């Protein structure tokens, strides 16, 4: 009975704390500007099914991709087991679903095999980070916290899976001994090999089984509350992030309607622009100038670095790293969120995403080649943020290098980015 109460309190606390954090994240994301990404729902469901559920972009890199599918499937399917654990915990039952008989055995067997595959995947991941030290996992933005975050997640997964398998092994051994309420249920293709490692005394076995059960479920609840602070939040946001992702051709940059109205008014004096609904600046200086999808992108990023590893600027030693763009956006957004908590909405701390987090040198190194957006396994778009920051620098500050300014004035005055006379445009046809 006491156990049931403790369990229920732990469960409730975990869910409440998690909801508070998620609410904060949603509030932060909603600090962004509105943008309509609810069109073409059929295509959106399809994209989500393919990219998030189907992991289609993960397998472009086969080793990481396949290991990730192990861990992902394990996560999704083993969580069915959590449902049973919660019911058992609240009502003080033991393996409540065992009445399903052979189907139950099938489920438990699948969980065990998946747990083993998760262990394999996670150990490979750990090796890639700790032993092999893959270049993709380092870089200026990979400071102490992002690096340890990744290791914590992997170690927690090892512990959770080990506890799960040990729990099953102890349970199975007690079942074989016909001990008390440990009725014969389930099938244990993996944990059966652990029996020899366990003590024979039923008392110790019950202790191990209970200890692992508690460790497993409390671990999951603690992990749940770790997610909002971690890059691991992608396990939730990957789904909405792909649903709301950009479905247009990658080459197409968004049209700024605020500019269209001004340009129309300039070209046609009789044009009356519609009354502006919100006074905003052109482009983005800070996170609030970005749209909510770009901000959700930042919370979805799991810092895998596939974007940075294919970025032509980064590969040739420039400062730009698309992963850093996303991490900076999240860090700045978190900071703005904390300011809002402390001082209320609209507090100005004198800082901004541009300059305090992302430098000019970074945004101007981009070739807009879309390698980053193509590489991202969850359709994050760092390029759109870079372009919005450029728009601010150009249209609000006129702060660009002289040669780009020269290009602008050539386009404006000569109709070409170079200083040629428009009258010479057809000269190519007069030579051979």
């Amino acid at each position: 009975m006491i156990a049931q109460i403790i369990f229920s309190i732990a469960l409730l606390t975990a869910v409440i704390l998690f909801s508070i954090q998620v609410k904060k994240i949603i509030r932060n994301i909603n600090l962004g500007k509105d943008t309509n990404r609810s069109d073409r729902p059929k295509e959106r469901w399809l994209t989500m099914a393919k990219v998030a559920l189907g992991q289609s972009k993960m397998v472009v890199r086969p080793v990481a991709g396949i290991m990730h599918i192990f861990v992902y499937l394990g996560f999704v399917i083993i969580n069915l087991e959590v449902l049973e654990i919660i019911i058992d915990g609240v009502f003080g039952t033991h393996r409540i679903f065992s009445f399903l008989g052979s189907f139950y055995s099938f489920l438990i067997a699948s969980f065990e095999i998946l747990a083993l595959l998760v262990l394999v995947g996670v150990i490979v991941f750990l090796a890639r980070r700790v032993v092999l030290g893959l270049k993709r996992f380092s870089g200026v933005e990979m400071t102490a916290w992002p690096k340890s975050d990744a290791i914590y997640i992997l170690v927690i997964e090892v512990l959770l899976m080990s506890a799960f398998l040990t729990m099953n092994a102890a349970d199975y051994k007690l079942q074989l001994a016909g001990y008390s309420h440990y009725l014969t249920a389930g099938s244990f293709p993996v944990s059966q090999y652990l029996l020899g490692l366990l003590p024979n005394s039923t008392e110790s076995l019950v202790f191990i089984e209970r200890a692992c059960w508690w460790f497993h479920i409390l671990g999951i609840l603690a992990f749940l509350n770790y997610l909002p602070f971690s890059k691991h939040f992608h396990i939730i946001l990957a789904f909405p992030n792909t649903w709301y992702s950009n479905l247009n051709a990658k080459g197409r940059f968004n049209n700024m309607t605020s500019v269209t109205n001004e340009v129309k008014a300039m070209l046609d004096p009789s044009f009356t622009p519609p009354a502006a609904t919100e006074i905003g600046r052109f482009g983005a200086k800070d996170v609030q100038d970005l749209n909510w999808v770009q901000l959700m992108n930042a919370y979805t990023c799991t810092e895998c670095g596939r974007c940075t590893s294919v970025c032509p600027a980064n590969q040739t030693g420039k400062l730009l790293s698309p992963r850093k763009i996303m991490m900076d956006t999240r860090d700045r957004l978190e900071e703005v969120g904390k300011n809002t908590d402390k001082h209320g909405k609209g507090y100005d701390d004198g800082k901004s995403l541009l300059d305090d987090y992302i430098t000019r040198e970074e945004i101007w190194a981009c070739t807009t080649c879309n390698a980053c957006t193509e590489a991202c396994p969850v359709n994050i778009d760092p390029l759109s943020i870079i372009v919005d920051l450029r728009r601010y620098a150009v249209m609000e500050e006129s702060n660009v290098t002289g040669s780009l300014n020269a290009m602008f004035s050539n386009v404006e005055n000569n109709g070409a980015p170079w200083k040629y006379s428009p009258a010479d445009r057809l000269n190519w046809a007069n030579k051979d």
Partner: protein
Amino acid sequence: MNANTIEPMNTTIKIPTMAEMMAAGEKPEILFWVGCAGSYDERAQRITRAFAKILHHVGIKFAVLGTEESCTGDPAKRAGNEFLFQMQAMSNIQVLDAYEIKKIVTACPHCFNTLKNEYPELGGNYEVIHHTQLIQELIESGKLKAEGGDFKGKKITFHDPCYLGRGNGVYEAPRKALEILDADLVELKRCKSNGLCCGAGGGQMFKEPEKGKKDVNIERMDDILQAKADVVAVGCPFCMTMINDGVKHFNKEQEIEVLDIAEISAKVNGL
């Protein structure tokens, strides 16, 4: 030589402008959007001429805007100058609509992307194709031959332009034009959706690169040298400049030829 004429194989072909066509009461099947690089850059002018020869050779009735053409605004938009972009776009749309243009072909993937994807929202709706797509069509319909010639047995590789490949998902058309050459088509290490940029996009063509270990086109040369290609085929005037500079950087002008798909097709067809 007369104005607006080029002379392949001693036959003079006239490059008609829209204004001339309109005056004669005629309409072209397709507008050839030349683009700034194709109009002014000396190396790119050769691509423009090669493509015009192809259009003439297959008997497609085409025209150019000539002095009425102006920058699509692409470099301004990529560099964050949305005002300038939209000014350019709207005045170009006025010109295109005045001539009732329906279909456009261009040899520049940047013009292609901008006209195709970014003009519709500003009221300019046209069917826009890249010249490699038209060349592929012409080969498939038998109007252009594509076997061998000078390229027989040569090692040819294709460098994907970002705004044609990743930007618009066109990977096959330029390859189709090369596949039937009887040449040895090799892929670069980073190709198709994983292709490496030449380094010119996003306004980089018009500014000095930021501080780094090397230039992007030099990085790209790693792939090209590794492929041991005799010919690097390109489909973009800016890639042409960057790859050519890369080849020169390694003093490989004697070994590696950089040609646009249009130049290759024109050559094979004796144009």
